């Protein structure tokens, strides 16, 4: 049993390990491991304007997607949760989950179709990219929030708060948002990771100047191996940072709750 676990972990970690090694290797052809040590690949990335721009674009898209997930996802989840009618709840849930079921290629085609028209000529803008990421990530945040609302029995706390005299806005500010803090953070962790790694839609709808990092990364695969490895490591670090930051906030929130 333990052997299986170890083998599985090696299987998981091996590509990442090879990427790291490859990104510092000078030459890597026809050998098991690369030869020589160099920082060259990283300095090439830093000095490549298209990579730097893509990196910044990815960060902007990620932050905007997270913010919009809070502004849209939280009220949406709340509305679904408090809908009185069971049928309405089911329909709303189904609609919110739809983007997960639809292949991304289909969504992207829809975006291209609508936003390349003369009336809505927004294809290639960063905001359209954000919109696409929002559509893709919203199901995850809504599902996480809904599950938490049911688990902590948010309705009961709301009933308590209203019996104590709190109106809708006071309840939202003092009860709903604080109680959902942890699940909101963990939802945003997923959203951030998804947004940073998203390739399919971004590749199809981003413009030349609004490419996200994964889209630009594809170009690197046609160049030197070391450069490709280094560029991929950057993406990996970015994703890892997003998850570490989110889990730290999550711990801070839950820690604040206990004290």
């Amino acid at each position, binding site marked *: 049993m333990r052997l299986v676990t170890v083998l599985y972990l090696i299987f998981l970690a091996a590509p990442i390990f090879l990427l790291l090694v490859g990104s510092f290797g000078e030459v890597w052809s026809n050998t098991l491991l690369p030869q020589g040590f160099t920082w060259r690949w990283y300095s090439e990335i830093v000095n490549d304007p298209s990579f730097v721009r893509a990196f910044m674009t990815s960060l902007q898209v990620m932050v905007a997607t997270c913010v919009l997930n809070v502004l849209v996802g939280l009220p949406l989840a709340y509305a679904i949760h408090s809908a009185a009618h069971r049928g309405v709840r089911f329909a709303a849930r189904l609609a919110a989950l739809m983007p997960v079921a639809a292949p991304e290629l289909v969504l992207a085609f829809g975006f291209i179709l609508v936003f390349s028209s003369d009336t809505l000529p927004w294809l290639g803008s960063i905001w359209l990219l954000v919109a696409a990421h929002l559509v893709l990530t919203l199901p995850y945040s809504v599902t996480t929030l809904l599950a938490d609302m049911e688990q902590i029995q948010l309705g*009961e*706390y709301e009933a*308590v*708060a*209203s019996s*104590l005299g709190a109106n809708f806005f006071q309840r939202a500010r*003092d009860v709903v948002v*604080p*109680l959902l803090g942890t699940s909101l953070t963990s939802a945003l962790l997923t959203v951030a990771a998804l947004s940073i790694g998203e390739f399919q839609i971004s590749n199809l709808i981003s413009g030349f100047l609004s490419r996200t990092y994964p889209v630009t990364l594809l170009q690197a695969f046609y160049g030197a191996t070391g450069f490709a490895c280094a560029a991929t490591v950057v993406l990996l670090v970015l994703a890892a940072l997003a998850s570490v930051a989110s889990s730290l906030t999550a711990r801070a929130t839950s820690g604040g*709750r206990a004290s």
Partner: protein
Amino acid sequence: MLHLDNVSFLYPGASVGVRDVSIEVKPGELVAVIGASGSGKTTLLNLLAGFLTPSRGRVVIDGNDVSAMPPEKRNLGIVFQSYGLFPHLRAWENVAYPLKVRKVPAEERRERALDALRRVGMGNRSNNGPRELSGGQQQRVALARALVFEPRGLLLDEPLSALDANLRVEMRDEILRVQRAAGIAALLVTHDQEEALSIADRVAVMRDGRLVQIAPPRELYDAPADEETARFVGEANLWNGTVAAQGRVRTPVGELACDTHGYATGAPVVVLVRPENVLAHGSRDGDAVNSFTGVVAADRFLGSTRRIDLSVQDASIRIQTRTRDAIGGVSIPPDAIRLLTPTNKIQPQEEII
């Protein structure tokens, strides 16, 4: 004063709810609502609280019709079964919350919250979070929070059902003491009839969405409105019988001498005898009226008392006694016998009209 005025409510798509219920709770009074699950007792509380809106009738608080008013405007303190303390706030912050939404200055609300906590004996735990408090302590904090803003009434929704037996009795007295001190109208919903009898000024019995009887505990126990109520409140021997002659009733345990005033000869009746009013003897007591002998079918030791089922003819007599001697016979004093109209004779009344 809390007043439900001929209130009806039906859950959509269901036949349950409440029908034409009127209850008044005066300031300083504690009225307990009891009934089986599904009898509508919690619906009554939700109607008063504002979580439900009556389909007919009015909800009146201190003379104002509040039927259409949302819960947050009704100014009622509610203690919930699950306590409902906010997990992200400390005990005193929980208690201060209703003052915060009422825009009481920060300094004053902290003081009033601490004062309210002291009144329920929780002054030394004010900085604890709800998770660090036991069930009984959480309930005390919830009680303090429901009273700190001087509400017009106090609603208690099965407040003790999550506590263990000893603590329940202790908290019962605590709730009564705090409610009396505050001098406000209180409505307690409970499925525990003993709890209702022990602390309420009046007890309302709900069945199938209707108010069957509302009376002080002693009256309810001694003179229940019908057979079902007698069965629900306390323990009871209940036998179907007929009036054999004036002063005589025929029952499955034998013929009993009792007061048959108000019932014609031949009328069907239900005979109620409380187990603690049955006198136990070692053998047949020839001198006593309504004296029977039988075989002990069950004998349970309950500590301070014994509960015995004595098989007599085709029925059994339940006895609650303090004696530890062997029992071979019983007698039932005539004034311990109460005649009731059978329940199924009352219900169709409405259809006839």
